[in-house]
């Protein structure tokens, strides 16, 4: 296995074991390894019912009527509900409340929930669904995003005025948002022709990114339990408890404090759990049936039940001078948002501001569009709009390097952004950005041995296609590709993003103990470990318990946008600092402390500047616990302007560079990724082992998008809603990785850290595509790359 260099120390005081910079075991690791960890699909009560969902078989239809009588008559059925039974708001949504709890008037995608059932057994529930009669008047699907966006005669997915509008975004027709960015001459009204005339080299390209699924392994699920006070308790796998609560309560017609959420075990998320799925349904059924109701989606339903990564159609043009200096870039990025808004406007904001990548380009014109269609709704997935753009601009950089006869890394280095540069929204990068160094490190990393160095080059396990290969590797060509991606981290565009932490320090059984309580969702990334580390470092106490996340404490924001270590880490740090201050004050008040002495907490005691123990915490706090709650806000951002897309809209920028080495069977069109090298600057590695795990996971998902992963949609219908047909990488599709972590602290962030979950998903895909191009000489303008793209067969005619 390739080595991984993770930083060994963070330079912080490390008197306390397992603090920031160490890699302690994750506290949930043992339970997860013994099978005792309770995932949302494992929730259970004796008297619970099972919920099931009837979904629209049509992507676009008028809903004429729903007859539930026969379903209700089935023995064992306790409730059958339609939109008429939704007591409060009929629609919800992350940005606009436009998604019906249960369809009314129209269905806008295949799989849209129409009715729900609670029954004593999952099979009874499914049989009841079969007995619900729904009358539809089928409408023509609006499935082409380009037509939906730009053809004024295209039918509307949402009738004018039906989607609530907060006036923040340019919208109209089928557009959820159009965000332009104009800089340099383009801001003055220059045309592309004028810029083109000034360039020595011009490259243009049309690119396409397929719809990717998050494909978390643990399906959507949860248990709603009706409460005595008329409210409901919901145990659910989600990314953001409070935003769920804020959407569920109005639909139930209940005050938020009557809808209490607790995080059940989460089997991966990657953005797919940012929107609601079964939450309101389970609560409605539980309140109606007055029994706990559990809903678990199966894999096919999961493909219908959550948003996907926006598929993209992109047009790029880059112009440069003969010495390789970028002169201008023009991009049009069209993102298919599907039937409902979800986070599409925010995804558009990212795609626009990150649209031409981390390059110094004096004249830029970007237009990013989010479009309504009757395709499956799209929203958050790791990388969030930056992934799609990265495939576009990095493909362009390679094309430009080829035209100039330059090494792809040299061209990128020559045009690299750095600290002090401005991104295309005019925002100055005020933290370190060692982009040039990162590129060079990726290029200079040792290469994996060539095929001729293999003990047996004909061993099919070393060949593209693996053991099912039918050839001996005669047509195998090696290729190397590079890519870099940049993404904004934390929430952008004026959103007041914060996290809340409650920290308690007390004496328990003769020793000091810390309890940390937040609502932050542990989705696998290891946030629960990080919270404990921060408490240990700040309070000098090793015994830390992180309580289960729930809504009894304030919002922690979403486990997305690479933000939780920054934001909830920041909140835990702030609450610990407040606790520490009170404890030190207490020590001064009660203890034998020399006046004016500088004190700190270490090794479970109040210590002097010289490290002498003045008073053990257990003694000081005996009978008087200290508890503090703090909200942590990152620095303010603002909306970019609607005309030129200018403004300081982002908190922080993350970057990753990938080098991909591939073997391609150019006759069969098969690819084996031989090795991936990732170089990422993380500011400060809080938990090096988990951090590297994030980069590895992100890299693998990018490899998947490059070569195999696509939700295939034809006329609004998903053709491959299963793991037999939607392929995610196995270990044999995932190469050994070399992860090189840099630590250039960001002075504005807690411990100088930089969010790390997403950047690796950006550059991984275009690096693999570049490597396959290098091996084949093909243009490869679409991911996932299919065998026919490599061997150059015409695309097969789509069969209905």
């Amino acid at each position, binding site marked *: 296995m390739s080595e991984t260099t993770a930083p060994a120390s963070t330079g912080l005081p490390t008197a306390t074991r397992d603090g920031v910079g160490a890699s302690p075991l*994750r506290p949930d*690791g043992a339970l997860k390894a013994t099978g005792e960890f309770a995932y949302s699909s494992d929730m259970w009560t004796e008297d619970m019912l099972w919920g099931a969902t009837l979904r629209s078989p049509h992507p676009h239809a008028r809903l004429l009527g729903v007859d539930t009588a026969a379903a209700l008559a089935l023995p064992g059925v306790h409730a059958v509900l339609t939109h008429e039974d939704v007591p409060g708001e009929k629609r919800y949504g992350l940005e606009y409340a436009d998604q019906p709890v249960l369809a009314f008037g129209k269905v806008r995608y295949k799989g849209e929930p129409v009715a729900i059932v609670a029954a004593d057994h999952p099979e009874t529930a499914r049989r009841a669904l079969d007995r619900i009669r729904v009358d539809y008047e089928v409408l023509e699907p609006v499935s082409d995003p380009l037509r939906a966006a730009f053809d004024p005669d295209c039918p509307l997915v949402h009738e004018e005025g039906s989607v609530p509008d907060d006036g923040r975004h340019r919208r109209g027709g089928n557009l959820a948002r159009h965000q332009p960015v104009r800089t340099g001459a383009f801001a003055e009204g220059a045309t592309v022709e004028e810029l083109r005339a000034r360039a020595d080299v011009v490259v243009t390209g049309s690119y396409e990114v397929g719809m990717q699924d998050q*494909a978390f392994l643990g399906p959507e699920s949860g248990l709603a339990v009706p409460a005595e006070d008329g409210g409901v308790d919901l145990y659910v796998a989600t990314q953001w408890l409070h935003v769920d609560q804020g959407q569920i309560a109005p639909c139930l017609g209940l005050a938020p404090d009557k809808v209490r959420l607790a995080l059940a075990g989460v089997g991966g998320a990657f953005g797919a759990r940012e929107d609601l799925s079964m939450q309101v349904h389970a609560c409605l059924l539980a309140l109606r049936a007055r029994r706990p109701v559990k809903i678990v989606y*199966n894999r096919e339903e999961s493909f219908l039940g959550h948003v996907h990564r926006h598929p993209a159609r992109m047009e790029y043009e880059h112009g440069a001078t003969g010495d390789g200096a970028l002169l201008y870039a023009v991009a049009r990025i069209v993102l298919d948002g599907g039937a409902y808004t979800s986070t599409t406007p925010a995804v558009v904001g990212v795609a626009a501001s990150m649209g031409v990548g981390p390059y110094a380009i004096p004249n830029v014109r970007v237009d990013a569009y989010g479009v309504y269609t009757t395709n499956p709704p799209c929203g958050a997935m790791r990388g969030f709009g930056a992934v799609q753009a990265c495939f576009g601009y990095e493909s362009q950089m390679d094309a430009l390097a080829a035209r100039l006869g330059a090494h792809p890394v040299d061209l990128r280095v020559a045009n690299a952004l750095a600290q002090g540069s401005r991104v295309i929204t005019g925002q100055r990068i005020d933290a370190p950005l060692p982009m040039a160094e990162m590129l060079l490190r990726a290029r200079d990393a040792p290469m994996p041995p060539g095929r001729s160095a293999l003990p047996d080059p004909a061993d099919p396990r070393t060949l593209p296609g693996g053991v099912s290969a039918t050839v001996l590797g005669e047509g195998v060509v090696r290729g190397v590709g590079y890519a870099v991606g940049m993404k904004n981290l934390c929430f952008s565009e004026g959103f007041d993003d914060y996290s809340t932490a409650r920290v308690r320090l007390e004496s328990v059984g003769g020793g000091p103990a810390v309890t940390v309580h937040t609502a932050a969702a542990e989705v696998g990334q290891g946030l629960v470990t990080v919270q404990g580390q921060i408490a240990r470092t700040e309070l000098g106490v090793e015994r830390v318990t992180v309580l289960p996340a729930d809504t009894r404490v304030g919002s922690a924001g979403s486990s997305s946008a690479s933000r939780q270590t920054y934001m909830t880490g920041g909140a835990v740090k702030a609450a610990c600092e407040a606790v520490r201050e009170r404890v030190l004050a207490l020590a001064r008040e009660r203890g034998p402390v020399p006046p004016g002495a500088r004190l700190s907490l270490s090794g479970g005691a109040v210590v002097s500047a010289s490290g002498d123990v003045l008073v053990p915490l257990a003694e000081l706090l005996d009978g008087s616990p200290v508890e503090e709650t703090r909200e942590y806000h990152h620095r303010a951002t603002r909306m970019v302007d609607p005309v030129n897309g200018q403004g300081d809209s982002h908190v922080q920028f993350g970057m990753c560079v990938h080098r991909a080495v591939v073997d391609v069977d150019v006759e069969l069109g098969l690819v084996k990724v031989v090795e991936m090298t990732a170089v990422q600057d993380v500011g400060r590695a809080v938990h090096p082992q988990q951090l590297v795990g994030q980069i590895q996971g992100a890299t693998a998902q990018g490899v998947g998008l490059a070569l195999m992963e696509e939700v295939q949609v034809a006329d609004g219908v998903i053709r491959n809603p299963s793991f037999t047909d939607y392929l995610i990488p196995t*270990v044999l599709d995932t190469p050994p990785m070399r992860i090189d972590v840099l630590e250039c602290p960001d002075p504005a962030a807690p411990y100088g850290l930089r969010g790390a979950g997403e950047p690796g998903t950006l550059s991984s895909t275009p690096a693999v595509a570049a490597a396959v191009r290098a091996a084949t000489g093909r243009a490869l303008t679409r991911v996932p790359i299919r065998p026919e793209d490599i061997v150059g067969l015409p695309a097969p005619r789509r069969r209905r």
Partner: protein
Amino acid sequence: MSEELHEIRLRVNGAEHTATVPARRLLSDCLRQDLGLTGTHVGCEHGVCGACTVRVDGRPTRSCLMFAVSAQGHEITTVEGLAEPDGTLHPVQRAFRECHGLQCGFCTPGFLTVVSAYLEDNPDPTEEEAREAVGGNLCRCTGYQNIVKAVLRAAEIRREEAAAAPGGERAAGAGERR
């Protein structure tokens, strides 16, 4: 419902269980819903992801592809049965935890049952062999690097333990735990 039900006896993790199920009840559903053993996870329902893998007479088997009635008379081991009765984690469990071979952990029970069986037959795998050993299981979180590491580490722990056990080196690879 007129469907015929069957009274079945299953031996799971060394204990006898009874359940009343239709003939088509999957072993995965029976374990999870009838016996309350929710450590066996269901990720795809049709034999692709490997999350539902249990050991049937020692052999890794996808419990979503087997009927509960046909598991009668066989010795079934789920992830809950890997640790020692005193709670000491199986070397594979320890290795996955140590090496950060799990993030969300949903795939983990399937990897653990597969690898525990694999190492009994292949106590000293190379890295390449370790990769192949887990080629039939999906993990969406880790990118597999630490899973491969964990397989190698588990093999190492087993060898260390065998060397330390009475009987010494000879036990390594030969004397199996279960």
